[in-house]
């Protein structure tokens, strides 16, 4: 609690100093906006739902928000409309949907592929090698290919995210399984564990710390590939955070650029806290990994 407060105070102090310096003309605020301007952008972009409904044919026109907007009467409802239909909420939802679905596909493919490469030499010498090569390929490099194969559609973005996820997860799973102490396997075999039981009840749980590490890493990779894809490709089926960032540059709104960057950072942090930290902590406590 005390440490959180200290962190908070430090950030506040730095931001206040920047604000004061910027207001006094220390730099051109069109290039580097004031903290208050960034905050104002975020606040506005999260509450502009009602306003956007009245704009005909906005790029991000949203039918459901429109019907909701006309039906509102109470302030709570209109606040909700303002939020639900806002630029940032919408972009965030579009982006998260892409991220989660891409990651899930990558996860469902990566874990079994990792198990296969760990188990069969044939897979290691083929798929394993491919994975090793592909992991080194920055996922933006998949964008041109994705555009040719899928046209500028959701599938193109999905493809890039999957490519960003699957290889690292596969390699982490393989590594995790390969480094399971042979003693565990011997002990399990003497108790009658074989085949699938051995995989499911021994190798996988024993590899879990490494697999969770791989899941975390591949989540970060998926997030990066998605941002790269969204900045690079404009897809009319939905405008994500990456597009907003790109758009900020085109209309020379630095407050938008920095505001969206901030949101991207926060989403990354939150995902780690919500998705991976609890699982990681549970395993660390169970295995006693914090001892030394």
């Amino acid at each position, binding site marked *: 609690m005390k440490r959180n407060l200290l962190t908070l105070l430090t950030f506040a102090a730095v931001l206040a100093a920047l604000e004061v310096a910027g207001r006094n003309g220390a730099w051109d605020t069109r290039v580097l906006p004031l903290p208050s301007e960034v905050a104002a952008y975020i606040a506005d972009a999260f509450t502009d739902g009602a306003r956007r409904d009245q704009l005909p044919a906005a790029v991000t026109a949203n039918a459901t928000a429109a019907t909701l907007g006309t039906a509102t009467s109470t302030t709570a409802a209109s606040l909700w409309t303002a939020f639900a239909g806002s630029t940032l909420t919408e972009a965030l939802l579009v982006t998260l949907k892409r991220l989660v679905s891409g990651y899930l596909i990558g996860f469902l493919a990566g874990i079994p592929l990792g198990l296969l490469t760990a188990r069969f030499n044939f897979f290691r010498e083929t798929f394993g090698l491919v994975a090793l090569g592909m992991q080194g390929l920055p996922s933006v490099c998949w964008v041109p290919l994705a555009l040719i194969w899928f046209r500028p559609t959701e599938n193109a973005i999905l493809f890039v995210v999957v490519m960003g996820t699957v290889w690292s997860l596969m390699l982490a799973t393989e590594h995790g399984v390969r480094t399971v102490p042979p*003693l*565990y396997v*011997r*002990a*399990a*075999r*003497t*108790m*009658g*564990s074989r085949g699938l*039981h051995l995989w499911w*009840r*021994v190798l996988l*749980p*024993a590899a*879990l710390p490494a697999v969770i590490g791989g899941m975390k890493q591949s989540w970060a990779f998926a997030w990066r590939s998605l941002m790269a894809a969204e900045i690079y490709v404009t897809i009319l089926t939905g405008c994500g955070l990456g597009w907003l960032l790109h758009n900020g540059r085109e209309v020379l709104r630095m407050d938008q650029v920095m505001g969206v960057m901030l949101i991207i950072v926060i989403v990354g942090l939150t995902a780690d806290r919500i998705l991976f930290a609890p699982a990681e902590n549970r*395993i660390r*406590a*169970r*295995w*006693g990994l914090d*001892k030394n």
Partner: protein
Amino acid sequence: MPTAIEQELRPVAPSKLSLRHVSKIFRGQSGETLAIDDISLDVSEGEFVCLAGPSGCGKSTILNLIAGLEELTSGEALLDGAPITGPGRDRMVMFQEAALFPWLDALGNVLFGLKLKPNLNNAERREVARFYLRLVGLEKQENANIHELSGGMRQRVALARSLAPNPRILLMDEPFSALDTLTRETLYRDLQSIFSKRRKTIVFVTHNIREAVCLGDRIVLLSSHPGRVREIFTVNLPRPRDINDAAVATFAHQITETLTQYLETPATKEAVL
């Protein structure tokens, strides 16, 4: 009509084990190693046999062959007359280090082998697992994580885990070597009491002669490179034995004496070194 649990907990008849001219060659990167050479050994039902000998003489190898974890190169390994072809629940192993699974708690570890046993439902399995944790004196630690247990407690859980599937043979590979003297001495007592309560054939590997005298009905002394049966001693001391007992110490001394003599004979010395 006994319940499933009673049936499960009823002591099973111990097995007879015989090794006939067993040899094992390991083929590794550094060429071939003849780990054990022409070992013949009979262990009768309910006998406690200790394998002793210098490091590298093939004690673990013999145990792994009996466990079915390794295949022999030549000879025969028979369990109640039938050749050993692989691991089986009739033979449980307790390893040098506790090979407990860190992702399961103490009870979960004991349950692991039981879950692979048909004829029991999960409630019965838990009941059986608790019985064995009680037997090794750890009923209060059933939900403890493995890393929270002391070394001695871990070996107790490992003992409970290997007893739980109710094997006919217990194979123990230096199970207490990493423990301090006091803990070890309590475990000698406990193991002997368990041995008398639940009659099993036990093959116990150690390189501590005193430990062997304290626990074994017979002591098989092996020589190394390659591993061969050097001498077999029968220990006729009354049970339960205390490792600090004068009789145990005297007997151990005699064996050590034989061992030294053997090492000092020029011909055999050459063979050993």
